[in-house]
Each structure stands twice: as C-alpha cells, then as structure tokens.
C-alpha cells in the first residue's frame, strides 16, 4: 500500500513535469516511477503517505496557511532587525521539548521553526530541540516551548500522529 502510494506520488510529479498526456510519456513515466519505487520505495517514510487520509489532508492544508503566515511575519521581523542601525538582537540557543514522536512530524516541526521568526533549529536530540533564537525571551524550557513550538505542534499532531 505504502509503496504503491509512493509510486503514485512519483508518477504524479512525472506527469506534472512532462505536462502532456502523450501515450509515450505516460508509458515511460510508468516505467521510470516503477524503477524509482523499486529502488527507493523502502526508505520512503510511511508518514509521507498517511497524509492522504482526508482529515489529515485538511489539517495539512490548514497548516500550510499558518506556516505561510508565520513565515511572512518572520521575514518582516528579520527585516526590522537587519535594517535597524542598532541591531536590536539578544541571541542564544534555547532548549524546547516536543510531544511529536514521528520523524516526519518532528522534521516538519524543525523546519517550520527554522522558517519562522527569529528561530532556527540547531539540533534535535530525542524529543528535545535546540533552537537558536535571535531574541531570547526567557531561559525556561516550558515557556520557550509555549512560545516557539506549541502553535505548530497542535496542527502537526493532527497530521502525522
């Protein structure tokens, strides 16, 4: 099942790339996608296909906009700090805990954090994330977790757990 979905994903991307419905392209696409699947299907993360469940997919959609919004905010934040003559920054690396268990979820979380205001994931050990924060507000794990992780985590749970 998982592998078939993986095959489908690849095939879909192929169709987008070739952007035509000529029988030759369809045929070759099948071959290529099959080849890719057989070669690499086994390391494809299973959560990658879970998202096709309608409910999860809906939350993915939601997450997408949340994420975009955060990202835009983050950019203006950076713009502010960079353009300001006095460089108003108070950087440091803080530690936060995540409730997510799946690799996929954690990866999404980490990358989302990296792309959102003033924070960047430096490392992830166990369920702890080390985050470089351009403007550290408190050294306390709980509070940082609230500020940085929570609003993503809530949605990501629904998608990947």
């Amino acid at each position, binding site marked *: 099942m998982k592998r078939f979905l*993986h095959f489908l*994903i*690849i095939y879909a*991307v*192929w169709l987008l*790339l*070739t952007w035509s419905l*000529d029988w*030759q*392209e369809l045929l*070759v696409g099948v071959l*290529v*996608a099959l*080849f*890719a*699947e057989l*070669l*690499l*299907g*086994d*390391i*494809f*993360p299973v959560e*990658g296909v879970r998202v096709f469940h309608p409910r999860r997919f809906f939350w993915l959609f939601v997450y997408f906009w949340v994420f975009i919004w955060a990202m835009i905010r983050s950019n203006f934040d950076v713009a502010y700090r960079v353009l300001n003559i006095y460089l108003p920054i108070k950087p440091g690396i803080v530690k936060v805990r995540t409730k997510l268990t799946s*690799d*996929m979820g*954690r*990866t999404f979380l*980490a*990358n989302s954090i990296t792309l959102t205001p003033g924070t960047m*994931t430096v*490392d*992830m050990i166990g369920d702890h994330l080390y985050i470089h924060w351009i403007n550290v507000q408190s050294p306390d794990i709980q509070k940082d977790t609230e500020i940085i992780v929570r609003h993503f985590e809530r949605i990501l749970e629904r998608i990947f757990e």
Partner: protein
Amino acid sequence: MATKPDIVIADGPKGMTPIVKTVVRFAMGIIFMFGWYIVLYGHLTPGGGFAGGVILACGYVILTLAFGKELGLRKMSDMAASILDNTAALLFAVVPMFGFLFGWYFLNFLDKGRPFQLFSAGNIPLYNIFIGFKVTASLFAIFMALSIFGRFVSKLVDEEEEG
C-alpha cells in the same frame, strides 16, 4: 547483513541527523525520477545523458552523505557500478555499429517519429540513456573512491602554503 532491509540501515546511527534523513528519504524518489526525466528528454531539451547522469549520481551521493556508505553501496555496489559503467560504454560503442547494416557508422537507423515526441530522433534517446547510466555509475564510483581518502581532505586544507 545482506538480509537487513535498507530501512533499518537508514534508521541506523550512522549518517546525519534524523531531520536530514527524513527529508532525504522523503525527496529521494522524486529526485531520482527527475534525473531520469532530464536523461530521457535530452533530445528535446538541453542536458540529456550527461546532466541527467550527474543528477542521478548526486542522488546517490546524497544517500551516502545522509545515511553513510553502507546504504549508498547497497543501492549501487562497486561491482554494480563498474559493470553498469562498462556495459553502458560498450553499448554506446556497439549499438552505432548496427549503422553499418544501413550504410554508415552512427547512422540513425531507428524511426525518427514526429518532432517533439519522446520517441523522436531515433537512436539519440538510446545514447542518452547509455550516457546517463555511464555518468551515474562512474561519478558515483569516483565519489566513493575519493571519499575513502576523506581523512586526507582535512590535511589537504590544513597544510600551510610554504613561502
């Protein structure tokens, strides 16, 4: 060892952080497909065998970087690489010989098809495929061969210019 499925190796301690690993696992299939896309469309868009081969080789390199040598070699062993390499080159040299049957060496004897179809330009896609295989195999082989000397790489930069 040989029985151990790749997924286990992928989750193993070697290689980079779970974040990187997950991303690579997630994107790998599509990268691979993209490489073949470039190869197969070589006669319609630029690139072709060589560029596509480079991308495919890069795919293997990413695997090696993210999961360590073992998985990379599992996906393409030294033996496989050299065989693939040589077979591709051999075919590339031999297939045009059939052109002699039709008069000229390298004669493009297959059906040319309509322009802008995938199966147009007769033999050329064939050659692109051979080149693709060859470039993939040999580049990956080179990477592996050089990565064995990884120890030197640091020295190679540390060594100070004399005079």
